Structure formats: C-alpha cells, structure tokens
C-alpha cells in the first residue's frame, strides 16, 4: 500500500518544486501513473482480503473505491486549470497541495485496518476540503457552507470516537480483520441502542441522510469544481464505506434500529428527487440528485442482504463517476456564462455539439439506463428492498421515474431548444474539457462489460 501512499505524498514536493509552466503537466501525469498502480489492487482472491501490513489492507469493497479515488485526482487537476489560471503561482501550488493532501488522507482512510486510524483520517479529510471550499469558492455564501459542512460532520463524528473507544475497551482491539472473526451479538439494552446510534450517526450525516442533508447543497454549490468533484464522488462514499464496515459489529440491533433511518431514506429519496424538478440552479440540482442516490445506498446498507451490499457498492462507484462528470459539465457552463442558472445557457447543442454528446451520456447514466453500472446498482437495491418489504416497490418505482424526469429536464433545458440571444460569444469546447468527460465516461462504460469488480465482497 505504501507504493500508492508514498508517491501521493511526494506529489506535494513535486508541485512546490516545479517550474511555472510545468506544474499542471507534472502533477496530472504523475497522478495518472499512481492511479495505474492502484488498478493492480482490483485483482482480489475471492472472499478474503489482501493484507499488506498491520495497518493497511484492501478487500473487494475498498479496492474499487480506492481506484476511484486515485482516478479522480488527475481529473480534478484537469478540471481546475481554467479557474486557477489567473491566480498567482503560490496560490496554484497551495490549491494542488490541498488536493494532494486530501487524496493522501482518502487513500489511507479507505485502506485503514484499525478503526481509530480510520476515524482520525476520516476527520482529517475535513480540513483540506474546508480550505478548498472556503478559500477558493466563488460566492459569499461559501463561508456559511464551510461552517455547515464542518460542524454537521463533527457533531456526528464525536460520538463515533467515544463509541469506538468504548468498543475497544469491551473487545480489546479495533483491528478490522480481527473483528470480523470474533464477532458476537450485541445484547439488547438501552446503552447498546445509544452505541448503535453513536456509531452510525457520523456516517449518516456524511452520506447524507435526508433529515441531516442541509450541508450538502450548500457545500457542493459553493465549492470550486475540484471541491465539488471530490465531495460528490468520494467524500459521500466515505459515509457508505464506514457504514458497511461498522454494521458488521452492530448485529442484531440493526434489525430494529434501522427502521427510522430506512423510513427517512425511502421518503427522502422521493423528496429530494422532487426538489430537483423545481431547481433553477444547475449545481444545486446535481447536489440534490446526489442526496437521492445516496439515500438508495443507505437503504441498501441498512437492509443487510448480500444483494443489497452488491447494489450499494456498485451504486457508489457508478454514482461517483456520474456525479463528478455532471459537475464537470456544469462547471464548463459556469466558466462560460459565470452563472449557475440553467435557463441562462439553453440550447447549447447547436453551439457545442460534442459537449451535448457528453451531456446526453451523463444524463442517461444518471437516470440509470441499461446496461450501465448505475442500473446494476439501482436494480439490485430495488430487488433486495422488494424482498425486504413488498411495499417499497411503490416508492422505488416512483423514485426511478422522478430521477428520469429531472435528468431529462436538465438535459432538455441546457441542450435542446433555441439558444439564447446573449450566448453567441462563448468559447468553443477545449480539448481539455472533452478529455475530462471522456476520462469520466470511459470507465463507466467499460465497467458495464465486467461489473463483478465493483460488486463488492458479497459477490
């Protein structure tokens, strides 16, 4: 695992020592090379984990998330080149350093063995993200967004720290590899109910659960493009990954403790999808769509069946790539018109047809068109929730319909129809932007040929 972590840490001296015309080239190239190394982790022997050391391991759940994380760094760097072009050199280097620090913490979080180490790195990802959102965001609301982001996550995760330490006292070790073998049933008592809540609330806030999701539209909208990408693609998945790891220790209370959260998620996914239909702000629409997809993941994780875990993992990877691509597309609009309002940039298909092709592909994968992996994830979740309770099919079906509705709404509003009269002086698409979209779409399409690598550890 050090073969991924040490090169990522060394990206920081690389940025500070590069010449002015080479910083983007150097960092993008080397981060692409690092993502190639992480691909070797996808070769997992069945049903077990690859244990590299006492501190790092990788199993079929964390390997795809790790590959997604390392794949996303070069994409973030490519996406940030335009809005940073006018900044002084030191600030560019600071920005890239923040992204690299975030990347290092994320890699270590996904591969951590010891749960306290996972917690420390989970919290550590907050600091660079906060700095990226607050320092390089574009509107005054970014201050409030940073505060909401930091305090929502910290309020949820401080009880998690106490819960982890008390579990360490009771069982003697928090090493994840040990826990999965000597797991015992949690006896039923009030304090164990609070233990369950303390363990899960941190991840619920991070996912986010419907009632606690207020930080997400603020943070996603106010962040610069790399911040939005990493938030949508990876940081939300930290919540899902944490939940998948920690529910192994929390049986059998999940069977009755999960009901309120299941209700909130099932209702919340319909509510947030419906809000998407009435959004005027493009980034806000994509942010609420993230909440809706993550609500599906929460439902899948709380049901705890093999198929639902497969669906959750596939949905996390698919949503990561799709959401990140949608934010890149929204950003390409923002860089041209300096506004996030959807109707100000209509009819782009006549002006930028290749970008319209990417918009089409992204919207189609967002609404889970077969045979993309988005569909595989959603279908597994819908099937397993139907087997958990027949009535959920109504809500799930309604959600799929409304998702299709708002994805097509977004596509038609931005691409089709007559263009506005003030839009005739936008720059054509850069090769960098087209490459960015292609690099998002290609893994998404190729994975539909071999989805078993993203189906997680219950395959």
């Amino acid at each position, binding site marked *: 695992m050090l073969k991924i972590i040490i090169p990522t840490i060394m990206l920081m001296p690389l940025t500070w020592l590069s010449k002015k015309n080479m910083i983007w080239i150097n960092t993008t190239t080397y981060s692409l090379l690092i993502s190639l190394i992480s691909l070797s982790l996808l070769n997992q022997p069945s049903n077990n984990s690859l244990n590299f050391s006492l501190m790092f391991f990788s199993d079929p759940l964390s390997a795809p998330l790790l590959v997604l994380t390392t794949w996303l760094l070069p994409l973030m760097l490519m996406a940030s080149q335009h809005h940073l072009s*006018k*900044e002084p050199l030191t600030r560019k280097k600071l920005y890239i350093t923040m992204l690299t620090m975030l990347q290092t*913490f994320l890699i270590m979080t996904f591969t951590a063995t010891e749960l306290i180490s996972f*917690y*420390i*790195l989970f*919290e*550590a990802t*907050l*600091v660079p993200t906060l*700095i990226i959102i*607050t*320092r390089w965001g574009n509107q005054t609301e970014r*201050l409030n967004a*940073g*505060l909401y982001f*930091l*305090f929502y996550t*910290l*309020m949820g995760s*401080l*009880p998690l*720290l*106490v819960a982890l*330490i*008390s579990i360490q*006292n009771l069982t003697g070790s928090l090493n994840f590899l040990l826990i999965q073998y000597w797991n015992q049933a949690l006896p039923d008592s009030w*304090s164990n109910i609070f233990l369950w809540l*303390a363990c899960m609330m941190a991840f619920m806030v991070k996912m986010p659960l419907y009632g606690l999701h207020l930080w997400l539209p603020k943070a996603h909208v106010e962040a610069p493009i790399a911040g939005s990408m990493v938030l949508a693609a990876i940081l939300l998945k930290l919540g899902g990954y944490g939940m998948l790891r920690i529910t192994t220790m929390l049986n059998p209370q999940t069977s009755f403790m999960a009901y309120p959260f299941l209700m909130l998620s099932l209702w919340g996914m319909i509510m947030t999808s419906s809000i998407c239909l009435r959004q005027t702000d493009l980034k806000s629409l994509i942010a609420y769509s993230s909440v809706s997809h993550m609500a599906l993941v929460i439902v899948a994780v709380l049901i705890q069946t093999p198929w639902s875990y497969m669906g959750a993992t596939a949905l996390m990877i698919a949503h990561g790539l799709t959401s990140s691509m949608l934010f890149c597309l929204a950003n390409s609009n923002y860089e041209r018109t300096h506004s996030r309002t959807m109707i100000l940039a209509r009819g782009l298909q006549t002006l930028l047809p290749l970008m319209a092709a990417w918009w089409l592909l992204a919207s189609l994968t967002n609404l889970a068109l077969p045979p993309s992996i988005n569909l595989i994830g959603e279908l597994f979740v819908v099937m397993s929730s139907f087997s958990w309770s027949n009535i959920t099919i109504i809500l799930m079906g309604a959600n799929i319909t409304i998702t299709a509705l708002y994805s097509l709404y977004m596509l038609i509003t931005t691409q089709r129809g007559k263009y506005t009269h003030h839009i005739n002086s936008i720059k054509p698409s850069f090769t960098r932007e087209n490459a960015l979209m292609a690099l998002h779409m290609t893994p998404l399409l190729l994975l539909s040929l071999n989805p078993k690598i993203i189906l997680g550890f219950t395959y």
Partner: protein
Amino acid sequence: MNPLIFTTILMTVLLGTMIVMMSSHWLMIWIGFEMNLLAIIPILMKKYNPRTMEASTKYFLTQATASMLLMMAIIINLMHSGQWTITKVFNPTASIIMTSALAMKLGLTPFHFWVPEVTQGISLTSGLILLTWQKLAPMSILYQISPSINLNILLTMAVLSILVGGWGGLNQTQLRKIMAYSSIAHMGWMTAVLAYNPTLTMLNMLIYIMMTLTMFMLFIHSSSTTTLSLSHTWNKTPLTTTLILITLLSMGGLPPLSGFMPKWMIIQELTKNNSIILPTLMAIMALLNLYFYMRLTYSTSLTMFPSTNNMKMKWQFETKRITFLPPLIVMSSLLLPLTPMLSILD
C-alpha cells in the same frame, strides 16, 4: 524598564514557580505562590496606564484571596494530619478548600471571571506569561494532591469551564479575550482527567502551552490585538496567515493536528473508566471553541483578496525578532503521529 531590574523580577517569577513545584513542605509552597504573585505584578504593569493598573489590581486581589484560602486549607490539613509534608490531603474540608483555591488561581469556573478582564488589560507578552507560565504552579499542586480531590467538585468545575470557555468566547473580537476564554476551556479539559490519569493532565498542559505560545507569538509578530487588525496580516506577512490557520485548527482539536492528541487521550481515559456521557458532552462543547477559532481563520486567512487593493495596511515597524517560532509551529501542529511515544511520560 531597566534591564537588570527586569531580569531580576523575571527570575523571581521563575524562582517562585520552581519553589512551588519542587517543595515538599506546604509552607514553602505557599511562599512560592506569594513570591510568584508579587513578582509578576510589575511584569503585568510594564506599560503604566490605568487599564494595566486595573488589570493588575484585579489579578492581585483574586490571587491573594486564593493564597489565603490555600493557607487555610494547609492549616486545616496540619490540624488533622499533624505534619507539613505534601502528600494526599487528609481531610475532605481541607481538600475542598484547597481545590477551590487552586481553581481560583487557574481560572476555572466558577472562579473564571478575572481571566478575560486581566488578560485584556495587559500587553501581549505579559498576557503570554500570564496564560502559560502562571498555570504551571497551581497545576503541579493539583497533580500532587490528585488522589484526594473530591471527584464531584472537580468534574463539575471541569465541565462548567469547558462550557463557559466555549460560550464566553463566542461574542469576542479582542484577541486577548479570545485566548483567555480558550485558556478557561483548556483548563477544564485538563482538570477533567486529573482524577483518572494525571499524566494526561501534564500532556494536555504541555501541548496547550506550545499552542498558546505559538498563537501569542504570531499575534506579537503581526502586532495585532483585535480581529480586525489580525485580518490585515496578509498585507504584511502572508505566510503568517497560513500559520495562524494551522495553529487555530490545532487548538480547536481537529485531527490530524497535534491539538487532537490530548482530547483523544482524555476521551480514551475517561471511557476506560466507564464514564461515557461525560466525554461525549465535553467533546461536543469543545465545538463551541472551534466555532470562534473558525471565525478568526475566516477573517484572517480564508477570505483573502485576489490581488493588491485599497485596503488599509499595517504600518511597517521594524520586524520583531521572534526566536523559536518555527519549531513551535511544527510541534504544535505535527505531533499527532508521535502519540505512541506517550508511554515515556509515565
């Protein structure tokens, strides 16, 4: 003032604290406290104006009251145990009175009212000495009598201090008052774990002193005493803004900076002793502290102008030489991976 006299007075302060920390006779400890108090008054009053006079008078009155209470507790202890050696305190009344006296010296709730006013009235360097060096002596006595302190009083004072330190700092814009409320909250954390594992009190004290030293030195370097003037540091030394950001986040207790280490260890120690609600409450109340640190970072480092502009600049005095600042900054932010080394503190 005359450098020779200033050195003598400073040495007396040091000597007072050393006598407190190294004596085993209760009377010598009391003498050390008095020596410390009398010698620090001229240091607090380095600039002679009514504001400093008021602050020094308040400090003197509270500390003298605390010393008298301490003397009463020592005499009661002498009555019940018949000897002057410092060991555990033999009588519950004496223990309660001694704890209150030491809490008054430290600035714990409900005796915290003097800390913001005194810290605000004196210069930054004197404030530095007040909030770091002066805490060493009472804390060392608390460490030595820790087996016999009444747990209820100690924990109540600790939790209330964290609460007051968090809430009181929310409405402040003067930097010295912010540091004072931060000191109250950190003292609360230190005394919470005193009954369970006093070594962690010392660890927290060490890291707190490092972080407070760093913060004060950064304030002295940019000669700023209000949030408004701190927000002008990007004009003078832009690097200082980054350092302020890192140190403030470390004081707030965010991982992966070293300010998280004492909080983590304290929560671990409290949880091992089966109190779970208490550390959860303490950790959540520490978020109040984080809020006003974040407000400081927002005005200082995270909202900078993209280019030069018409904003008021600070007058460029001769740069003050701050010795020791880089190692302090490194230690106050990067020590978390060294946590397993804590076994040497035993």
